[in-house]
């Protein structure tokens, strides 16, 4: 188990990590999610030993890592853009860590073949890394990181530079590989869909400290605060007066769960709306786009406030149509 306590890193005036605490349990897939500049990459580099933190400490199974050099930590790191060695073949790249571990040539050849098999590139040993497609490079980088059987695998935006279709397929494959091999994994990304699709647990990073952590469901259902809600793309946020399970806000008047009362800020998740004949909110559809499984609509209320929503059940209202909306109390989250 990895334990990081009170990590702080500053670059000049800028604080990259601000007293960050983090644990990764054995066999767990932890996704660190955050916008660019939130300190994700710095966190990986500190754990990897490539960056010395200003303060704080790291330990593995209770033993400190603070004096352990990067090459002795036994962690695997898959770099953004992969950093494949251009002067070595695919096989030479994958074999690198095994050679450093002093493995015999026969064992290395065996292991390289095995790992290339896992990532779906059997027989690629003698290819030059310059001629690989983006997806193939990604797989070689993964194979290289996996080959020495690291006690923890870290990935920095591993599918970030690939096109969308390939990205979704690879995220599925990665999840399968992590679970099947029981790998302890720390996965860094700015893409929430990737994180939700892949992680057992998510840590959301903001300005170098943890804004929220929990399972993907917990984070999605209960974003902790306005910043997290907006980061997740939930923009229906307003002040409301809550009395006896009914919230009164600029959006309108609707029922919520729980026994909160008084003045609060709340968010309505975009999946919380249904089109019906009777409901608390009326408005006009001002934007409508098809997103595959669902439609995303923008509805302007009578008061001129814009609401963002996802509608997946037909009939989906068309542009300019006046609609009456119902709100699922489960989709309303009190933010403070």
């Amino acid at each position, binding site marked *: 188990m990895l334990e990081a306590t009170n990590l702080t890193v500053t670059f000049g005036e800028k604080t990259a990590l601000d007293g960050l605490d983090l644990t990764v349990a054995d066999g767990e897939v932890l996704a660190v999610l955050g916008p660019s500049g939130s300190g994700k990459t710095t966190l990986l580099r500190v754990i*990897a*030993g*490539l960056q*010395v933190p200003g303060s704080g400490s790291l330990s593995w199974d209770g033993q400190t890592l603070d004096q352990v*050099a*990067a*090459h*002795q930590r*036994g*962690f*695997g*790191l898959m*770099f953004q*853009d992969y*950093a494949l*060695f*251009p*002067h070595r073949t695919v096989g030479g790249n994958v074999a*690198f*860590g095994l050679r*450093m*571990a002093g493995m015999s040539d026969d064992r290395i050849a065996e292991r390289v073949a095995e790992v290339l098999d896992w990532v779906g590139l059997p027989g690629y040993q003698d290819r030059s890394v*310059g001629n690989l497609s983006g997806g193939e490079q990604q797989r070689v980088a993964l194979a*290289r*990181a996996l080959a*020495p059987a690291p006690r923890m695998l870290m990935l920095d935006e591993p599918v970030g530079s690939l096109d969308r279709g390939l990205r979704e397929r690879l995220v599925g494959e990665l999840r399968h590989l992590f679970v099947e091999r029981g790998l302890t994994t720390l996965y860094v990304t700015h893409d929430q869909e990737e994180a939700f699709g892949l992680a057992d647990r998510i840590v959301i990073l903001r300005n170098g400290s943890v804004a929220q952590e929990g399972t993907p469901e917990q984070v999605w259902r209960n974003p902790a605060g306005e910043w997290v809600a907006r980061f997740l793309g939930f923009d229906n946020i307003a002040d409301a007066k809550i009395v006896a399970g009914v919230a009164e806000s600029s959006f309108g008047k609707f029922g919520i769960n729980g026994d909160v009362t008084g003045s609060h800020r709340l968010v309505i998740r975009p999946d919380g709306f249904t089109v019906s004949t009777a409901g608390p909110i009326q408005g006009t559809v001002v934007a409508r786009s098809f997103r595959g499984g669902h439609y995303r609509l923008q509805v302007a209320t009578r008061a001129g406030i814009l609401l963002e929503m996802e509608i997946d059940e037909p009939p989906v209202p068309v542009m300019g149509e006046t609609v009456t909306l119902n709100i699922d109390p489960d989709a309303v989250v009190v933010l403070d």
Partner: protein
Amino acid sequence: MIERQQPNRGRRVGRLTLIAVPLVFLGYFFVYPVAGILGISLFSDGGFSFSAFSEVASKASLRGAIWFTIWQAVASTLLTLVVAMPAAYVFARFSFPGKSFFRAAITVPFVLPTVVVGVAYLALLGPNGPLGVDLRQTIWAILIAHVFYNYAVVVRTVGGLWAHLDPRLEEAARMLGAGRWRTFREVSLPLLLPAIGAAASIVFLFTFTSFGVVLILGGFSYSTIEVEIWRQTTAFLNLPVAGALAVLQLVGISAILVAYSRYQERRAVEQQLRPVIEVARPPRGRRESGLVWGVLGFTGLFLGAPLAVLVGRSLRVGDGYGFDAYRSLGEASATLVPPVEAIGNSALFATAAMAIALIVGTMAAALIAYYRGAVSRWFDVLLMLPLGTSAVTIGFGFLVALDAPIDLRTAPILVPIAHALVAIPFVVRTEVPVMQSVRNRLREAGAVLGAPPMRVWREIDLPLIFRAMLVGAGFAFAISLGEFGATSFIARPDAPTLPIAIYRLLSRAGAANFGQAMALSTLLMGLTAASILAIERFRIGEMGEF
């Protein structure tokens, strides 16, 4: 139709001019003299014979010079690579206050006149030097001076590639269990090999043809082929043997150049290069700070000490200090004319050489940059030859060949022409990359907006390459100021340049002469350093090859 033909004919005429001027210049002032050397070495006894070559082969002193030339060049190259590698790393990977000044400052030794370097080391490692050791006429003085001279070549060439090398490749190796040394050996070193090869071949070439340093520091104990050519010509008047030596040296240099270009073609590893800004960062932690400031301290001391001692010795008067040596420069002395006149001569020659190198070099660069194809590729090689040929060979060639059809041997213009020959490759190498970087799209935009071809060049290309031309001009000026090898053959006794005057002063005994030599060297160093620091201000990023 007529409308369309005119620019085409203009284009052809323009191209012909671009080919003709540099070709005639190089043909008459380089190929013809080299042919003259070949002739004199093969037709020594009135008819065709190899007697000059067999004399070289039979004389132990000449065989010794050839052997010494090779092994000192190998030793100098290896030593320079090892000594300068840490600085290449520090300059590539770290940012620190005053970096661009430091970078400019380390380039100064590279363009310092060989005579000045020789004199500086004579002052530092001579019997009255501050180190208290006398390394005169030892191999160490020569090797150290060569490292001093070529330090910047390695820092700039290897550091230049290192600065663009993705640091994550090294980090990836670390994450896979490689320690620092192993990472360097297995990842950085193989990726840097093209630059190391390039730097090594430049250093090898310069030290292989080393003249001034060996002449001054080697005394009679050590001589390179260059020194031997000069000695055979000026002391023994044995032109056939000098010619044979020059031919052998030319063959050796060509072999190195060919081997090197073959090696570069094979080695080209495609790699992702990153912008320097992403890579360089301030040192973190005590270990890195120690490395950076340690390396900078060593560099400052190693490069600064000889020059400081030089300045110090120029101010030495008996047991005290004063400007006596400088004041005496106006008096007639061992240089035949008052040494101060040499300053005027040098300034005049350098200005003329700069003008010639800039005109011929820019035309050649335009040909190479704008007309791709077999002709311009061959032209590129032809232009580089004078750089590899060695200055002594050029001067010697002028001496043996330029008596006919017109006797130019005593014409004052010969000195700047020789200097321009040495400087042209630098001008071309500085301008071509910049010219090629001007995107055709820009020219097309100019043309579509109504500018005829010459106007496009004047309004779009010229402003962009103007800075490169300034840099080339500065190089040409500095090279001419310090040129010694070729000048030693062709300078008229009554019109010595600064390096010639310094050498003459050094070859006479006496404290007054030595003081004057130191004073003139200090002035020459100041002039050269000033022109190089001026260049640095005009340099566009890291573009250009020097």
